[in-house]
């Protein structure tokens, strides 16, 4: 009962926050609404017993990605006057709506199986075993790390003067 109430509060706040990211004319307030959306998603993770994932969600999305978004907004010229006008509004709306329809259709058409097992109680150690053990996902994790490093070096090379 308590879980259901919490889920619905989180879900409604998340959707309202996400809508306000899209429809807000003030870019900075849109970024703040995005942060609220991230936090409520972390709350939904907690109701699903994924406490480690929830903490990482807040750490990465609220602590790092939102900070970078805000930094980018602060660096942008004339952003104080609100959203900059351009001609991409209608195409963006079309693409966004099509994507939303596809996602909603997929989610409602899939039959979701509910696991019979009860959730693991400390999730940290099983996650680590899954990611870093020999039979787990060690290769994708390592490749992902190398890819990110290449992206960082690439960004530095592109933006560097001379």
């Amino acid at each position, binding site marked *: 009962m308590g879980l259901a109430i919490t889920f619905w509060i989180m879900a409604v706040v998340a959707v309202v926050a996400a809508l306000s990211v899209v429809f807000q004319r003030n870019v900075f307030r849109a970024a703040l609404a995005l942060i609220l959306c991230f936090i409520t998603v972390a*709350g939904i993770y907690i109701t699903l017993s994924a406490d*480690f994932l929830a903490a990482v969600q807040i750490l990465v999305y609220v602590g790092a990605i939102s*900070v970078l978004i805000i930094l980018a907004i602060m660096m942008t010229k004339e952003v104080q006057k609100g959203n900059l006008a351009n001609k991409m509004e209608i195409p963006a709306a079309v693409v966004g709506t099509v994507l939303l329809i596809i996602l909603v259709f997929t989610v409602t058409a899939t039959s979701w199986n509910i696991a019979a097992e009860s959730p693991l109680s400390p999730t940290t150690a099983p996650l680590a075993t899954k990611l870093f053990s020999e039979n787990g996902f060690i290769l994708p994790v390592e490749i992902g790390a190398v890819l990110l490093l290449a992206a960082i070096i690439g960004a530095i090379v592109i933006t560097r003067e001379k």
Partner: protein
Amino acid sequence: MAIIDLVINRRLSLAALPPDWPGNNYWWHWLFFTIVLIAFVLVMVMGAIYIERRAMGRMQSRLGPNRTGPFGLLQPVADAVKVMLKENIVPDNADKIVHWLAPVIAFAPVLMIFAVVPFQNGALLADLNIGILYIVAISSISTVGVFMAGWSSGNKYSLLGAMRNVAAVVSYEIPLVLSIVGVVLVAGSMSLNTIVLKQDIPFILLQPLGFLIFFAAACAEINRSPFDLMEADSEIVAGFHTEYSGMKFAMFYLVEYAEAIAMSAIITTIFLGGWRGPLLPPWLWFIVKTFIVFFVMVWTRTTLPRVRIDQLMALAWKFLFPLALINLFVTAVQVLVWPDALPWTAVYINIAIMIILIFLWSRFFKLGWGRVEI
């Protein structure tokens, strides 16, 4: 606050609570610790303000405020009353809602940090098994409040302060977290209660380099001098809270000291053995150690001049970050290769490694003389 409620709901372990602490049923425990934590933070902040003003006075060869009450003990109360009676001014071109919300968003996470800090074995609001990660995650929300303040004031000094804060936070979060990982490796747990229980030797001895990195990064994270660039009053008026007055300014003042107390409490818990100690009751040991760490922060503040923004970034990326990585690597090797090594051998080895590394790196890396390359 529903998130917090849930975290507590699901992870509360009542069995571990020591018998002489009240709170034997769920709601009673929740209510008791919530009230105790709020009172604890407020009283500790008053103590911190008193220590800072008086100790800083002594260190600068002056008396400090000594007229209100015996030894000036009532000075924080006088400050609080003064600030509450002031007029609340909101600038005309401010973003009103964000301006109003900013102090609240800056303050709430600081209070939430104390939920996982143990005062005695098991005496804490919620013994999360991800305790230290929870602290790192929650404390990163606090900076959002600072941006909101800087942005919504509609003042270029506020914005400059907020931008400096972004730069500092992005740089200092990394060495901060990496130095915590070393402690987590040695303790084998992220729960703060377990970390304290594992400290038969305080981790400051097993992780001396990690402690120094954490201390420097924590000072930068909470804007303590010598890293108080975002409110550098000789350069940008008062940084992000230039346009705040009255109760809202008081909130930011409270956040500043509550964050300092929170970081002192975390350093106490993960490096200095938390509530453990002979003779005195555990909670008193905890408070005494917290104030000692805070005193060292005041001491560095009065001793060191403020750094420039480029020096701040260079220190984070060229000095603290590589050292934190090496520290993590050395700790991982020690934990893997000699898990049962005699603790005192490991202590001597780690202190030797710390001294060698710091000397070596300070040869490579020079700060000052106006010649820092970025």
